[in-house]
């Protein structure tokens, strides 16, 4: 079973993203053996968080147990309200924040309550990261990891740039609530091997950034990494299941559980 913790949906203003609707996403997931995708819509990250989070809920409804949502907290658009509104909504697994896009530092005051509410609702926080960014570079990630040790922080793209992978892995080594996520155009199977060697397989999670990036590119890199079966199982599935289980302490994730229980083990389902 494969769980993808970083996805999106809908159109994006800068370039054409084909087949970004819920049906297309679940089709490509099925073809590749991905059982569950956690996503936020591009509307939510690029423009209007409230409207986009509603769109995300619609995607999840259409996914019938194979999609879960992240509610986007835009620091300029009542971020705490966005999270509190979705804290008890079983369609939402966690919170997505994008400091680079919203031009506001991850450790800034406007995100503080977001992290506190995420802690309260057992929601993981997926943050975009970019090595060298003043908004979501490694120093910013370290600050929030330190300030909110009870929040599982999914480090989107793990810094994205080749030059930054070591620094983000070091941060993850120092902070047990950081999870390195594997999407990004400079990601490589050898980097994934390094991550697992550096921080352990229990601290690395699969994410594809579909449909921003073709799912198969990210998936093939991850499956191509030279990992043991146990390590691969952790990265591709069981670490994500732990996040889902923790979230299920707050909301009823029965539909997702049923979907996942229909799947067999990772190695059996993989195409």
């Amino acid at each position, binding site marked *: 079973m494969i769980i993808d913790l970083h996805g999106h949906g809908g*159109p994006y203003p*800068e*370039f*054409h*993203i*084909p*087949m*970004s609707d819920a049906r*297309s996403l679940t089709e*490509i997931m099925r*073809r*590749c053996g991905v059982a569950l995708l956690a996503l936020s819509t591009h509307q939510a990250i690029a423009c209007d968080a409230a409207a986009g989070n509603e769109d995300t809920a619609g995607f999840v409804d259409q996914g019938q147990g194979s999609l879960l949502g992240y509610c986007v907290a835009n620091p300029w658009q009542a971020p705490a309200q966005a999270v509190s509104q979705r804290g008890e909504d079983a369609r939402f697994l966690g919170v997505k924040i994008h400091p680079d896009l919203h031009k506001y530092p991850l450790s800034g005051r406007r995100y503080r309550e977001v992290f506190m509410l995420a802690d309260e609702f057992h929601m993981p926080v997926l943050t975009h990261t970019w090595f060298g960014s003043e908004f979501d570079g490694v120093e910013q990630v370290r600050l929030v990891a330190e300030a909110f040790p009870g929040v599982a922080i999914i480090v989107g793209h793990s810094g994205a740039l*080749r030059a930054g992978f070591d620094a983000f892995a070091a941060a993850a080594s120092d902070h047990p609530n950081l999870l390195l996520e594997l999407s990004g*155009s*400079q*990601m*490589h*199977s*050898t*980097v994934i*091997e390094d991550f*697992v*060697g550096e921080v352990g397989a229990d601290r690395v999670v699969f994410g594809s950034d*579909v*449909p*921003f*990036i*073709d*799912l*198969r*590119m990210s*998936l*093939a*890199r991850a*499956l*191509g990494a*030279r*990992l*043991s*079966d146990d*390590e*691969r199982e952790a990265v591709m599935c069981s670490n994500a299941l732990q996040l889902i289980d923790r979230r299920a302490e707050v909301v009823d994730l029965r539909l997702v559980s049923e979907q996942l229980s229909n799947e067999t083990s990772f*190695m059996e389902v*993989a*195409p």
Partner: protein
Amino acid sequence: MRSAQHAPVAGGVIPTPARGTIDVDAALGVLPRGPAVDGSVSTLLEHMDRLGIETAYVSHTHAWHHDPYQGNTVLHSLCQSSRFIPVPTMHPDDLVGRGQDSEDGHLEAQLFRLCPRSHGYALTEVRAEGLMRRVEAVGAAVIVALDETSWSDLADLSRRFPALTIIVGHLGYRELRRARHFLHAYPRGYITTSNLSSNQGLELMAREFPDRVLFGTGYPLRDPHESVGLLGWSSLAPETQSAVARENVRRILGLMGAEDGQCGPDHLSTPRTQPSLAEEGTAPGRGWG
């Protein structure tokens, strides 16, 4: 390198393409800014064996990042395996006697790599004209990564040298509509799968231009698993997969062994004037938005 046992990719995880797959976009040699690969012949062959790639058109990174002549010389010395077909890197200022011509003045390869941005020129410059004219005259092709040039320069080149076959790789995830326009407008334009990372971009392009998409890994800059996964998990019809995996490149570059007996550069390829997205179960217009 970690010591964990490697679960064999071909053992049921990434679906490998059919036998006989040809990689049109690979290189030997190390990279100055990563990824950290050793760039050796043995490593590339090991990747090819695991991923079901039979033959690779290869350049050398020395010719890209150091000196075309020296890199081409190294390339030829390393291409002892029949599974490698050398792709010399050309520079417009090195037309004679610098590893790109044989003594009688004929170009030796069917495919040449161009690195305009890294080598400090533009495809549209006057000094590049002689080079392009000669490649066009012998019916050879050029391959260039998109980030080494621009669509406008590629369009200009295509207009000025209409018989020149131009293969563009490393498209990334933002270029789908521009790539579609390029293939529509220029009948001798081709794209590769290397870093063709737009969501389901492979299906959209290969359904509309089944004879214009070529399998390429972009190794070592790109992780070679990417293109293999892209094609292996694709929803393309088997004949389109086969065209992308090997038949198109055989036809274009004249690689011996083409099953259809149509070896030799194809001068008859024509662009489709109407999109054909209704093929293979795709609703008309779906995907282009």
